[in-house]
């Protein structure tokens, strides 16, 4: 690996906040004047919490069994891997028979499948989607491009390591991974969950500052609160 090219000077300017997000005065439909500050008003400011496991081991084991057999995937095709997700919903590979379902809203999903490379613009949306999912939640990285950049290793707009930004439970290698590989990945994830090792959400909460620092280093126009729960 050649060393970082020091001759190239990266410019890190501040990106101004978008106009509709700045604090300002507005007139409501019934004529009142109110001051709004969108970033504070519209979002909850709570920090993520570490949620302990259930008190009894038997209960926790039962819960983990239920979680592993009812994986609800957020239907968010972030990259080209999304094209192999569709065969999974259809007759040939039918992932539904393993309790895997697709949900359109992050509030009802447990598994975020990052299907392929993440451009910086999508990373922002993926983080928001991830933070809105209820705990415990799992992240699966699909394809070589989430592991180390893959064939986009020199691209200026795609991230290289997904686990810098989100706690990843499982990677599936390949470009692109076949549906059989995905199914195998789901089975592996089930094993991990059943062993009680899939605590990515707690890891995220524990190392929150570090994850945020990584995310903000890449996303220049950070125009949302730190935690979008």
């Amino acid at each position, binding site marked *: 690996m050649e060393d970082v090219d020091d001759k190239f000077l990266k410019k890190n300017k501040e990106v101004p906040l978008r106009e509709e997000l700045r604090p300002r005065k*507005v*007139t*409501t*439909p019934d004529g009142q004047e109110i001051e709004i500050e969108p970033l504070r008003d519209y979002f909850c400011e709570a920090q993520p919490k570490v949620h302990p496991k259930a008190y009894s081991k038997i209960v926790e084991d039962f819960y983990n069994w239920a979680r592993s057999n009812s994986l609800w995937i*957020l*239907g*968010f*095709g*972030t*990259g*080209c891997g*999304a*094209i*192999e997700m*569709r*065969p999974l*919903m*259809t*007759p*040939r590979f039918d992932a539904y028979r393993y309790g895997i379902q*697709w949900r*359109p809203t*992050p509030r009802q999903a447990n598994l975020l499948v990052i299907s392929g*490379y993440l*451009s910086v*613009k*999508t990373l922002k*949306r993926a983080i928001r*989607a991830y933070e809105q999912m209820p705990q415990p939640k799992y992240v699966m990285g699909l394809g070589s491009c989430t592991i180390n950049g893959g*064939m*986009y290793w*020199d*691209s*200026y*707009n*795609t991230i290289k390591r997904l686990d810098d930004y989100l706690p990843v439970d499982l990677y599936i290698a390949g*470009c*692109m991974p*076949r549906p059989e590989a995905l199914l195998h990945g789901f089975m592996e994830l089930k094993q991990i969950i059943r062993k009680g090792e899939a605590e990515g959400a707690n890891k995220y909460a524990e190392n929150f500052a570090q994850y945020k620092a990584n995310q903000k280093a890449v996303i220049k126009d950070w125009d949302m609160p730190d935690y979008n729960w």
Partner: protein
Amino acid sequence: MFSFSPDRSQYPQPGPDGKVEVDLETGKYLKLWHGPNHPGITGNMSVELTVCGDEVVEGKTHVGYLHRGFEKLMERRTFIQVFPIVCRVCVPEPDFNEYCYAAAVEELAGIEVPEMATWIRTLILEMGRFNSYMMAMGGISGALGLGVVGQWMTYTRDLMLDRFEELTGARIYHMFILPGGVRAHLPEGFEGRMEEVLSTAERYLADAEKLMFHSSVFKTRTQGVGYIDPALFERYGVTGPNARAGGVAKDVRKDSPYLVYDQLDFTVHTEEASDIYARTMVRFKDLHETIQLIRQILKKMPKEGPVMGNLPNVLHWKIPRGETYIKGESSRGEYGYYLVTDGTGYPRRINVRGPSYTHAMALLEHLISGTNISDVAALMVSLHTYPPEIER
């Protein structure tokens, strides 16, 4: 009978330049993001809708979620190294990129392609078109709530992907067409297995036709919705099935034949209505035409011959300064590669002209105002856009 159509005098009227003035703070309008995390969106893109009641006042397309900087990356790679990334420009129909790029390189470098290779290339392109149309049929039926057709279509597409796998070794990204020809011959017994796939596909398509084109609910949802005025086709760069649905019988395969299309018989299907129904119908007929073409190619193609021409040593391969543009008829319209070389071993500039570029941006923004929110998904799918080729 009283009228069900909404009272439009309550809605904002467009100004002289056709734009609607929207003041969000009156509380009358709602900003609604369709996507990127939305099952009704074709891929990873989003439409920012401003709605008034159930009607869309204004729509802005936002793309860039899939931007990888391909055109920049290609400039950093040698001509042969570009191949692995060129097919990733358009995920559902990657072969077209390979063909266009290979043809552009061949033209500038003066490489001869053996005849057998052109036949196999045509076969690959038609198989890719089959897949792409299957995705489109599944998409439109899914967007209208007919999930079962989507299941059948994706299943049939899987069968065709098996044939791809047999031929090229990969399901999605084949990297089979190289400058100078293709990588391999057809495997033994390929025609018979292809025939099985095609007849299965025809059986499913007959069922799908009953559920879609003979269903009165489907007609109510699609007829007269999403109308594109044929007068706008040229201003907005509408090509392919979207234009053919408006009665413009233009098809690059027919007008300026490339590969072996001049030796094949096929008709260019058109419709007059230029709405979602007509566009779906054109795709459906084209799908049958594609099945027919695959059979024809397999019958007419020579049985043996070299598949790869002579390539220079790729380490020292330099192409003199020049520029060219290669186009072809993809399943969505005119697909083109603009290649500029500067005498070095690397391309100077490659620009991909994807049909979705014009369809999903300017045209969609134009069409979307005035539609019902429920029709947005169907409208987008009926334009058959693939976001990766917009932003590359």
